[in-house]
């Protein structure tokens, strides 16, 4: 196929009118202070959408115990195999609980399959997105840390995000 290029007039082929027009456009952007889109990150934070998928955490029930029954469905469905569970018996009604529960946040792809597959709503993708560490082993979160993250108050859409204060 042959593309017909438009024939430019002499005025258009001079280029200078077009260049000056472009320069006028960029100049107009300089005084537009109100329209700047930069977010001053540690001080200002992004208003998260209501179903934001951040880090997967473990939730606790009303009795204060973790809901997880150690069925390992999340471990099986996890595409990057970021979840590792060590199951054990318990005298509680659910009879089985995770003795150890690890999620490697360096592997996690935040797909949310674990949350979807969980039969007891024990694992949930919360709004936490600041997961950096100085070492790769820092990114392997254990059960204590995951439960602690799960106990944080939930995020309410439309309100300022109740995360910890910036340093």
């Amino acid at each position, binding site marked *: 196929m042959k593309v017909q290029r438009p024939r430019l007039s002499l005025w258009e082929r001079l280029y200078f009118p077009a*260049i000056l027009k*472009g320069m006028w*456009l*960029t100049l107009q*952007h300089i005084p*537009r202070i109100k329209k*700047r*889109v*930069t977010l001053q990150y540690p001080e200002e934070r992004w208003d998260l959408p209501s179903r934001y998928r951040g880090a997967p955490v473990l939730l606790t029930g009303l009795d204060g115990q973790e809901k997880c029954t150690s069925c390992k469905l999340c471990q099986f469905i996890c595409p990057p195999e970021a979840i590792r569970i060590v199951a054990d018996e318990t005298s509680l009604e659910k009879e089985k609980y995770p003795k150890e529960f690890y999620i490697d946040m360096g592997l996690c792809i935040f797909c949310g399959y674990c949350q979807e597959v969980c039969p007891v709503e024990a694992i949930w993708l919360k709004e936490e997105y600041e997961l950096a560490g100085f070492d790769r082993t820092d990114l392997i979160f254990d059960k204590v840390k995951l439960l602690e993250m799960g106990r944080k108050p939930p995020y309410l859409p439309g309100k300022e995000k109740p995360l910890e204060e910036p340093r």
Partner: protein
Amino acid sequence: MIPWAILIEAFVKIAVILGIVLTGVAYTTLAERKVSAWMQDRLGPNRVGPFGLLQPVADGLKFFFKEDITPREAYRPVYLLAPLLCLFPALITFAVIPFGTSITIRGATFPLVIAPGVDVGLIYLLALSSLGVYGILLAGWSSGNKYSMMGSLRSAGQVISYELGMGLSILTVVMWAGSFDLNAIVNAQTGSWKHPWFLIPHCLGFVVFVVCLFAETNRLPFDLPEGESEIVGGYHTEYSGLRFAMFFMGEYANMITASALMVLLFLGGWNLPFVRYEWFGPLWGGLLSMAVFFTKVFALCFVFIWVRWTLPRFRYDQLMNLGWKRLFPLAVLNLVLISTFLLLWEMYLRAWLLGGKP
């Protein structure tokens, strides 16, 4: 005793000029980042110091502590020399650039130029500013990297396509002023009705000259040797740390030199229309002329930045076309027009308009 006085005078001037130019370089880099940010509705660097004003210091420190890498395939002597060759000519061109009228303190008059009375100032300036391109050529060639090689080849091609047009466009200015001395060129354009800035009679040459200067300073639309989207980083791909900083500073120092050249040749130097510095006395007049000169220079630096963030990069063959088929004929046309006019002026018009013998 006299040589000491001259030496001290020269050293003081060198210190002042290097101070202004190097601070200018540092803050032009900041201005580049700030202006580009504003044009893109961003904020730009604002963390180091108030409004990010200490950002150049932070950048310099960062460059200082970075590792200096020489690739195994590089040709070491040239590889180490090239950054110096890029920065050095840009700085020593200021030896002949006059940056004001003159200052008189206690009866002693100091002309505001490091080397006063160089009557081939313009030729010296052109020679040195062309030398800066060799830094780029050698850097790309000696890096032992094919992308760098491509960058320096582009630079070589670029040089031959714009230098001719640039030289010809300056020639008319020299003919009009009748001198290669930069001081004389500035004094020939005082901004009065009879001696307007050369921008007005030489508008065609000015356009050609500006386009060529953009090519010479390797600024966008003509930053082909860099071309980071096509040839990674071009000639400075392999450089890091202070050596990269030297290229960086060289680019901005070249920008300031180019702006100074443009101001001297076409925008009346330190002259303002219908303002005479004798009105302000020998000291304040001189200082004011210096301030006006550097204001013009840094305003043109803003134009360089402005153009960079507006226009896309030219393709290689487009630059060749522009240089050889547009700028060169335009410069020749300009030369013919101006020289014909000057000839007629000398032979008939002057006598007819102003009286006197032809």
